[in-house]
């Protein structure tokens, strides 16, 4: 009798625990779904290959061992335009310290991106994501969005919105290979 009572207790506890955990997990992930992108900090950065305006191919996996400062932008986006000169400054500071800067434009025309680049005097590599596949695989919602990718190829940080020059410098420092 006592045996069966104990058994009953364990069975009931187990069933209730499994159900509760399953439900709490479901609700938690449903409620937080919108707020978290599919990519999270700490995830492996999805590989891509894009050709920049100069015709050089940039493949993310080729930069293993270096930090990559990956910026998604558009010419119509005002905060993008504001932060780009600062990015350009820091690009020169960190490019020889193993931090690669790459700005990915979301599907605009060559002409527009070129004119933007020239009028703002940008020197870092800019590539155009013509079929929006890189944008999709990085789940870009607002522009600008910046991904800090560390030398291991993992996402160190995701920054949504405009950055100051100090921010940019700090971020580049963060992914500098040691």
């Amino acid at each position, binding site marked *: 009798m006592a045996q069966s*009572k104990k058994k*009953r*207790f364990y069975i*009931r*506890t187990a*069933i*209730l625990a499994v*159900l*509760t955990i*399953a*439900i709490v*997990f*479901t*609700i938690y*992930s*449903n*409620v937080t*779904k919108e707020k978290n992108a*599919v990519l999270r900090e700490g995830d492996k950065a*999805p*590989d*891509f*290959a*894009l050709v920049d305006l100069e015709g050089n191919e940039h*493949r*993310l*996996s080729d930069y293993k061992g270096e930090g990559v400062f990956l910026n998604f932008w*558009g*010419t*119509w986006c005002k905060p993008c335009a504001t932060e780009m000169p600062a990015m350009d400054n820091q690009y020169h500071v960190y490019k020889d310290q193993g931090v690669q800067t790459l700005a990915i434009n*979301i*599907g*605009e*025309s*060559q*002409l*527009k991106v*070129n*004119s933007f680049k020239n*009028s703002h005097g940008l020197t870092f590599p800019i*590539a155009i*994501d*013509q*079929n*929006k*596949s*890189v944008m*999709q*695989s990085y789940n870009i919602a607002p522009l600008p969005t910046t991904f800090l990718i560390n030398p291991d190829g993992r996402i160190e940080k995701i920054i949504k919105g405009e950055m100051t020059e100090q921010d940019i410098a700090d971020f580049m420092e963060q992914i500098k290979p040691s």
Partner: protein
Amino acid sequence: MDKIVCTCGNVNPAGTLLCESCGRPLNKETAEKKLVDMRYEGSARRSQTYNKTIIDKVWNFFSSVKVGVWLIVLILVAASIGTILPQVFYVPATTEEDIAAYYERIYGTFGTLYYKLGLSDLYSSWWFQGLIGMLGISLIIASLDRVIPLYKSLKKQKTKRHFSFLKRQRIYGIGNIENGEESIKKAEEKLKTMRYNVKREGNALLAERGRFSRWGPYINHLGLILFLFGVMLRALPGFYVDETMWLREGETLYIPKTEGYFLESKEFIYETYSKEESEEVFGDAIDRVGTIAKNYQTNVVLHKGPEGAVAGHLDDLTFEKEAAIQVNKPLKFDNFSVFQMDFRLDELASMTFQLQDKETAESFGEFTINLADPKPVYELSEDAKVEILDYYADFTGFEDGVPQSQSPLPNNPAFLVKMYTPEFPKGETSFVMIKETLEPLGENQHKLAFQSVETRDVSGLTVRKDLTLPILMLGGVIFMIGVAQGSYWNHRRIWIQQLEDGQVVVAAHTNKNWLSIKKDMDAVSEVANLPKYEDQQDEDSKAEKEEGV
């Protein structure tokens, strides 16, 4: 609590109301009732029997039908509140502020309150999902708690039941008849032809039919549980994809979340019903409503990138298939479906200009700008060309003398151009918009005269993958089987017994459909000469009889 030993010798679990074997009432309360409660055969629902630890208490809470009904009612009320105003996903706004502003603007204070209370996104709120989760727990526990004792007690039931059980059945009759033994035998044969499963034990008879319908409720609950489980799985990564894409005619875009699939739009087709084709039948409706849409369709080509290609890849796409995506006819591949959901007609695609002399209107040639990819220079002849210095797809005006574009969509294209002609080999600068031209560096002699535009349509497509569908389907099918089994069949039992004093007792029970069991009883009585039964719950017939109508 201890087990209850019945006078007949059967050992019943604690909490049993009617002896599983002979049917004697096992406590005073049951014994005092005129009719027995047959809902769970008087078996001991496990939950009611133990109530010691907190786990038992939680278990009993969820096992209660009362709690289950309350949960159903709460979900029902909550769900109805969610339909008072449109939910956020039907609201034409995306950011939090815009949504709040929308509710305020359209629905006033009530709208703001509705939004602030979170009712505008009620169905994805933690508490609503929590209610559904609790209902799921209740489904599992309540079923477990009932189906096992019910199964046991139906299995253990004896053919010979105690008189006290029989006389408390809703359909019951007793009387002296000649040759009782003979009657019971006749009844047995008749019942067998009526597809009853008949058992004998001495001078007692039990005829039973449709017992499997008793499992219906538990099977349909199983189906529901499976369905809810399927819904839960969508929370796991990889099971569920829901993306949208805007695809322009002529464009090839990566299909979000797929393994290297690309979609090219050949053409978007929008058709309406014309009066000519169906004047007779639809004429009135078209007259009243105006245009009625007939078809939304995107003709597409599905491409696949090479194995192992990474994002950003443009070349080496291989043709997979051509398809026409229509409403109700999605494109399907690899667990993915692409649906025709929305469209925008006539987005500007290209503009044609003529370079001409303002006064003489002499032309130096025409050129067409592809708005998705303008070229830096358009050569018109040996000594005339137009250079595009900058391009503003969605021009909104100047800010500190700098032209602004608010989006990359060619809603209002504007160009900063330099026009080279034999007279002006250094070029004249002009700012060309759709309807007007500015000359920022002084009066020009030449202009770009707008000739024509070409437009293209944009298809709004939804990309969906849902690996939980088979589970949901299975849940639905099992639910339907269970619910049909429990609703369209019924469990009937007829007891006939000759008591020691020679009187014959008849009694019958069904979980529903009393009309049919009465008919069965009548049919048996006809051949077997059994005592008259009466429906002990039917007040009307009794009253009628007493009145002598």
